């Protein structure tokens, strides 16, 4: 890996100036590296972070990728990494005009990383540096504990998709309530009602008392009020603090819970495992926003490379070549889903709609299709609008909010499916639905969505750990359950339970019963959804043996 040459860097700096003029915002410093294919193979299992900790699964992955490349090209790579400064990777044989395009694309990503609120947990530190520190920590632990470090990593990674990313984000973005407000809330909402179970009249008396305090001591309302309270309920203060602690501890993900409460990890000789788990949890949290904003991020970058490239004066004479490359990246496949293309089209559509003032109550009131078509208030606030969207949305909300029927119709989108043609003996690809609702659902089904698994403390009795998988009409991958639970059992040091749902039976209604021989069966107009029967089951891992029963 080496830095790009001065000439290319100059192109990049030129791109930055133009991008900033266009409204993108990012830190001035960036690093661009030339990488060989070999480098890439080696860092791709590390999620493109060259300083990520060493782990044997990465080595296996490298070997596998190498083998795979002999047969099939094409693999997931991200090129821009969300570090401070942002680092991007290139192969060195790009002509200048192409570098211009790629640099704008990269700047789009960097702008997205540094402004989208879902990334706010990654803003305060440089992950490349953090990862290096973690890597050294793990290397040091390895000299002390040998391969047991790898077991700790393995078992930690087995649950690293269950990190409470949204909790973490919401904690960061939550408006700061003063502790006093909380005390007042607690007093009126919980203490009086649930703990003391006072009658309505008494409750009203308390409200009156508070209002009296407000009138008499406008400067120090609560101090005055609670000194009164203290006289009548001396236990209040203690209970309030206890409730605070309880509330803090309530929302923890599986990894956090293990770190904080596992009897096995509390032992002096096992404390080091806590730091390993901490590293794994933090690493996973850093990657969460990226995987949850793929369509937006790629769409945003594609939108900007297209917009900025066409305005760039330095690339005159390369429009045709650009058009060829760009079409390859941003064309919609006949069947399939290209996140670059979909995201970009949504952004263009948003800009146009907002320019015309279509995101307004006035517009929504209109039923007439012609009028909707013609509606144009010339508000010209498209750019402003898409910048807001880039700041506040993730893939799920983005798709769910903005893929509407107008958009689907305008872009000729549809849900495609395939079926067997028995006469020709071919798979037929056909248009299954052109409804926005179906298209939305199809995209959403493809999005990253880890299961919601929480710890049920009340059922965790006799030194066991009881996990509950929230039912979302999706079963867990059965083959993975034993080893995952084996790892958790090791980290917990006692029996582990997992409550989840499994498919009991799928019935397909609506198949014609009597078939006339010799006639092809007509494809059903609206294939009936299969009915799924679910059952709740409990897996138990005890002494490295897995058992299952229904509950």
């Amino acid at each position, binding site marked *: 890996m080496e830095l790009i040459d001065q000439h290319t860097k100059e192109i990049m700096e030129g791109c930055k100036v133009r991008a900033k003029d266009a409204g993108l915002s990012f830190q001035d410093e960036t690093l661009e590296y030339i990488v060989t*294919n070999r480098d890439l193979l080696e860092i791709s299992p590390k999620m493109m972070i060259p300083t990520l900790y060493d782990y044997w699964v990465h080595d296996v992955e490298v070997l596998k990728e190498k083998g795979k490349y002999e047969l099939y090209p094409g693999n997931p790579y991200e090129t821009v990494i969300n570090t401070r400064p942002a680092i991007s990777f290139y*192969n060195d044989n790009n002509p200048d005009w192409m570098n211009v395009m790629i640099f704008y694309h990269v700047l789009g990503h960097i702008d997205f990383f540094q402004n989208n609120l879902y990334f706010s947990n990654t803003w305060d530190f440089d992950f490349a540096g953090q990862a290096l520190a973690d890597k050294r920590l793990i290397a040091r632990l390895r000299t002390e504990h040998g391969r047991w470090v790898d077991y700790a990593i393995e078992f930690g990674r*087995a649950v690293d998709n269950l990190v409470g990313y949204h909790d973490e984000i919401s904690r960061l973005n939550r408006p700061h309530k003063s502790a006093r407000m909380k005390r007042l809330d607690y007093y009126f909402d919980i203490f009086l009602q649930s703990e003391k179970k006072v009658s309505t009249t008494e409750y009203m008396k308390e409200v009156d008392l508070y209002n009296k305090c407000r009138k008499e001591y406008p400067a120090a309302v609560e101090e005055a009020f609670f000194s009164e309270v203290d006289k009548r309920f001396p236990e209040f203060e203690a209970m309030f603090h206890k409730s605070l602690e309880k509330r803090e501890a309530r929302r923890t993900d599986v990894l956090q819970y293990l770190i904080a409460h596992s009897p096995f990890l509390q032992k002096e000789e096992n404390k080091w495992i806590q730091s390993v788990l901490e590293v794994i949890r933090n690493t996973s949290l850093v990657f969460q926003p990226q995987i949850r904003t793929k369509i937006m991020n790629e769409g945003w970058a594609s939108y900007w490379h297209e917009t900025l490239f066409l305005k760039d004066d330095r690339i005159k004479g390369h429009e045709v070549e650009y058009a060829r490359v760009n079409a390859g990246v941003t064309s919609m496949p006949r069947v399939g889903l290209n996140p670059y293309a979909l995201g970009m089209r949504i952004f263009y559509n948003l800009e146009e709609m907002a320019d015309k003032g279509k995101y307004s109550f006035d517009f929504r009131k209109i039923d007439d299709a012609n009028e909707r078509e013609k509606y144009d208030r010339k508000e010209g606030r498209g750019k402003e609008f898409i910048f807001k969207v880039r700041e506040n949305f993730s893939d799920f909300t983005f798709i769910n909010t903005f893929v509407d029927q107008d958009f689907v119709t305008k872009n000729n989108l549809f849900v495609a499916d395939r079926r067997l043609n028995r006469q020709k003996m*071919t798979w*037929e690809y056909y*248009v299954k639905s052109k409804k926005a609702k179906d298209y939305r659902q199809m995209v959403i089904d493809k999005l990253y969505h880890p299961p919601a698994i929480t710890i049920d403390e009340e059922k965790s009795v006799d030194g066991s750990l009881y996990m509950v998988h929230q039912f979302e009409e999706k079963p867990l991958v059965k083959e993975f359950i034993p080893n995952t639970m084996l790892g958790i059992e090791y980290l917990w040091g006692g029996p582990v339970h997992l409550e989840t749902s499994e498919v009991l039976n799928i019935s397909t209604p609506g198949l014609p019963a009597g078939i006339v021989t010799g006639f092809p069966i007509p494809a059903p107009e609206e294939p009936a959804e299969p009915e*799924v029967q679910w059952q709740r089951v409990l897996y138990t891992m005890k002494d490295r043996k897995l058992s299952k029963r229904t509950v």
Partner: protein
Amino acid sequence: MKPKALFERLKKEGNLSGEQEQKIAEELSQEYLPAERGIVPPAPAKSIYLYSDLLDLQDLSRPYCSFTTQLGSLDELLERDKLREKDGFPRKIRVGRLIKPGKGGKDKVVVVPSTVEEKFLHDSIKPPEEEGEGGEGGHGEGEEGDVIGEEPIRSPEGAGAGPGQGEGGPHEMESSAYDLGKILTEKFELPNLQDKGKKRSLTRYTYDMTDRNRGFGQILDKKATLKRIIETNIALGNVPDLYDIDTGKFLIAPSDKVYRILSKEKDYESQAMVFFLRDYSGSMSGKPTELVVSQHVLIYSWLLYQYEKQVETRFILHDTEAVEVPDFHTYYNYKVAGGTQVSAAFKLVNEIVEKESLVKDYNIYVFHGTDGDDWDTDGKASIPEIKKMLDYANRLGITIAEHGMSMGGSTEVERYLKKSGLLTEKPNHIRLDVMGQDADEPRLIDGIKKLIS
């Protein structure tokens, strides 16, 4: 409706020509990888997470690096993996095979390690319909219900099974299979063969300095030359007293010098002929077939290593009748919905061995994979054939991959084999391995140990 059931129905309706029927049968037994040539319109859909800037934007070419240069580090990984068992955790690294279907059955195979990071992940509820996978994105003209493209069920180039599971034609995979055999022997502690049995001459020659020549040559054979000189001088009367030889008086004729010269030698090596037999009746579809075939590939690799590539293979499929098929690809993929008569396959092997008089030249191995069903429930026909086979075969290994229906380990084949007492009588010649249909790779390898040790 499940494809299989559909297939049955179509057959009943009589809509299918023989060719079509065969095509579907094959279709049912495999998953498709995209063929190399452009598929009619719809290209295989990528997941949105497989798109990336480097490939899509920068058009990065694929790197080339040979797998075998990395064997060293694979060794280390496997070494470490072995320690897991000691620590009480299951092994994680699988030695897998990747296959790319090529033209004319010449599939390309590479051996790679693979591992899965197991996590709690959502699974999809597989739609029981034959229609698609529940939807894909699409773009362009067309009304609901319009057909926008089609793809032949069976691509003309042929195709393999799913990634990481497929196998390929034996000749193409030879070099990789040899590596795999080496790994199996060394890392998974499969035994080395003690006695490789008969040796036969091969059409292979080695060159060695074995022939002697008088007068000229490459290397002077001093001992032989000295002998000749003494002989000559005795004849000349130069050695009057054997206990007091004066070599100074010796005369040396040019023809006394004996040289070794380079010469062609016939090489004698042991070699093996392996018969792979597989039940391809309807009940074998899916998991049992996969297990049996995977195990057979591993066995083949192991033998290839043991016999230093002097292994020939024959493939035989059977339902109620047995047929020999030309290559592994067919062996793997063929499937019919017939009944089962194990004896047919054994009989065919016996016939082939007799007709081609293979016993003289080869060490013969027979491996049979089945789900344990046999219409010949008492083995009346099978047992005599097996006995006949045991007279010449170095090893007969029978693998039973039980499917879900047969509960708790007494399939017909297992039962009659046990009853016949052959397993205990001739443990050096016949072995049986029974596994559930959910067996994994380590289990397969254990099974091989059982079959061949």
